[in-house]
């Protein structure tokens, strides 16, 4: 099997290398005129750190169709219960990153609490579960105030499908996770040693306007996305 695969791989490499060489020859006498701009931020940045980030985030997120619920460390679980009840959700996938500022115990506590409230929480991330769950509750890697974006990444214990497959997605964002602008988020990524295989910048519920320009949500991804925004 391995031998089978390595041969096409070697020939793919050779084809690529030959093309790059040919391109180099073609461009040899061509004088490059455009230099790579170094100073981007000045032009691109829309939101700065001194702005009121939770307010900016809330405005931007609301305008793209996310529902933002301001919360405190003591009432965020109540809020999640309310949201789930509103959508008649019963089976709920809970996927909280142990590295998130919510703390290591948050997932267990939330699970216990949801069970006590009559929901059926699970931390299973297999296809069967993800495709049939009524809702998913996830932590986020970051959130961007400029656009009202939440960022979910893959990683150990973090399924890509959690924020994608169930019809309702509840994301827990700590205000300390807010970055002002897209620039800040991508700078952060550039400084990171290795990137997760999959990063999703989520800006609103899944939507389409393909049918006569009418806006419809919930095409492939969740129809409802809630953000529980926890300030210390």
């Amino acid at each position, binding site marked *: 099997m391995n031998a089978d695969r390595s041969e096409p791989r070697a020939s793919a490499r050779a084809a690529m290398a030959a093309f790059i060489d040919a391109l180099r020859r073609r461009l040899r006498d*061509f004088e490059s005129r455009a230099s790579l701009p170094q100073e981007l931020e000045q032009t691109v940045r829309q939101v700065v750190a001194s702005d009121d980030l939770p307010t900016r985030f809330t405005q931007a997120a609301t305008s793209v169709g996310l529902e933002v619920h301001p919360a405190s460390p003591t009432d965020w679980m109540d809020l999640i219960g309310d949201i789930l009840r509103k959508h008649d959700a019963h089976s709920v996938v809970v996927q909280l990153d142990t590295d998130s500022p919510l703390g290591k115990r948050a997932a267990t506590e939330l699970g216990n609490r949801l069970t006590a409230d009559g929901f059926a929480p699970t931390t299973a991330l297999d296809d069967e579960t993800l495709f049939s769950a009524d809702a998913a509750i996830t932590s986020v890697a970051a959130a961007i105030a400029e656009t009202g974006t939440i960022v979910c990444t893959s990683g150990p214990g973090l399924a890509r499908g959690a924020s994608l497959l169930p019809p309702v997605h509840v994301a827990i964002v700590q205000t300390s996770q807010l970055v002002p602008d897209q620039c800040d988020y991508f700078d952060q990524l550039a400084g990171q040693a290795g990137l997760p295989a999959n990063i999703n910048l989520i800006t609103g519920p899944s939507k389409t306007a393909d049918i006569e320009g009418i806006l419809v949500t919930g095409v492939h991804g969740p129809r409802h996305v809630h953000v529980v925004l926890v300030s210390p």
Partner: protein
Amino acid sequence: MSTPTAFRQRVCEAVADERVVRAVHLATWHKMEARAESMRQLRDPEAIRELAAQIKQHTLENLPHYLEQFVAQVERSGGCVHFAADADTARRIICDIAAAHGTKLAVKAKSMTSEEIHLNDALEAAGVRTVETDLGEFIVQIDHDRPSHIVTPIIHKDRQQIARALVRETGCEYTEDAEELTAIARRYLRDIFRRCDLGITGVNFGVAESGTLCICTNEGNGRMSSTRPRVHVALMGIEKLVPRLRDLPVFLKLLARSSTGQPLTVYTTLVTGPKRVDDPDGPEELHVVLLDNGRSELLTGEFAEVLRCIRCGACLNACPVYRNIGGHAYGSVYPGPIGSLVTPLLQGLDEHAELPRASSLCGACQVVCPVKIDIPGLLVRLRVRTRRSQPLLKRAAIRLWKWMMKSPTRYAWVQWCLSRLLPDCRDGWSRGGPGPLGAWTHCRDLPIPPKQSFRKLWRERLSDER
């Protein structure tokens, strides 16, 4: 083949369909307004466009370097890179990948590049059922139609047509409610997603420094197709590269605004390699297919800047010609102003010599283009290159025009003649006239020349003042 008569016939058919013309007008108009409004949120839209153009231009001029870096990084992250010199090779590579995995069912996210190489036909011929998962492209597929816009492919269809197509394909109850229709498609495609074993996506930007693929969708078809199947094939033109991760905000802030007036597409997905060992889900293999298909030929020539295009579709929405004839009349995969450039350049000047002429050269496309491609200027240059394909009479007329414009006396004389020759239709416009003049004014609004020319007025006023 786009012979002048075939092209003319398609245009005539298109403008005769009032329903489609109205639908396209409305949708493009709406998007233009949304675009204008969202661009105002940027601090300095002009400067960002300039930056975007410069970054892309730089990348193109140093493409071997960035390609090398990109390939190395994709491989480092565990992905496999393939190079396809032309459409045929790209189709073969992707069919081979499908065959190696015994694929029977593949899903596809929206990708113009895959349309360019007519990938679906090849996969179907190889026995792989390939399902489009962008709602618009899905409707196009089940209705055996063709997309008419690069961002919103069924801009030309009304909901009755969409409903009938869905009923036929899924056996659902007939409904004209957009939400219900979407829900029907969602359920149908969910089942496909669960069963498929290969996912094909396009790529909006490939980041050289990290080997990251950036895929933008609103519905989530890009996410689904790169999450569920065991194998992810990403097809990208070699011009899609940007050097650094921090270049992405420059383009992301422009792309969705230019397309639909959104600040950002709903899902901006960054893929760096296949699933890691500890990841609970995701594709086990990632194949990146880099497509040339004529692009590298353009790099050193006068048309290089068309490769900056990020396929936002703004130039289509802005174009008075596109708005009136819709996408199908162009008879090419890429319609609108950018299509009128790219199609002849990539697929042959002679076959598509009419396309560069399908423009009023009003310049609206250039004003909205996020990467500042001089579309009208390049269209004129393409016209020059294809002038031999024009009818003799027209070429002679243009010669004559040139000769006339070169001398003030000749110009004045012709002006005087025309003001006598052009018939006054009493509604302020002139139509008809002798010989070729009649053909010319038949479809062009020409105001009636005033009885006194500007030069004459100028001379008289000047002498009055003295």
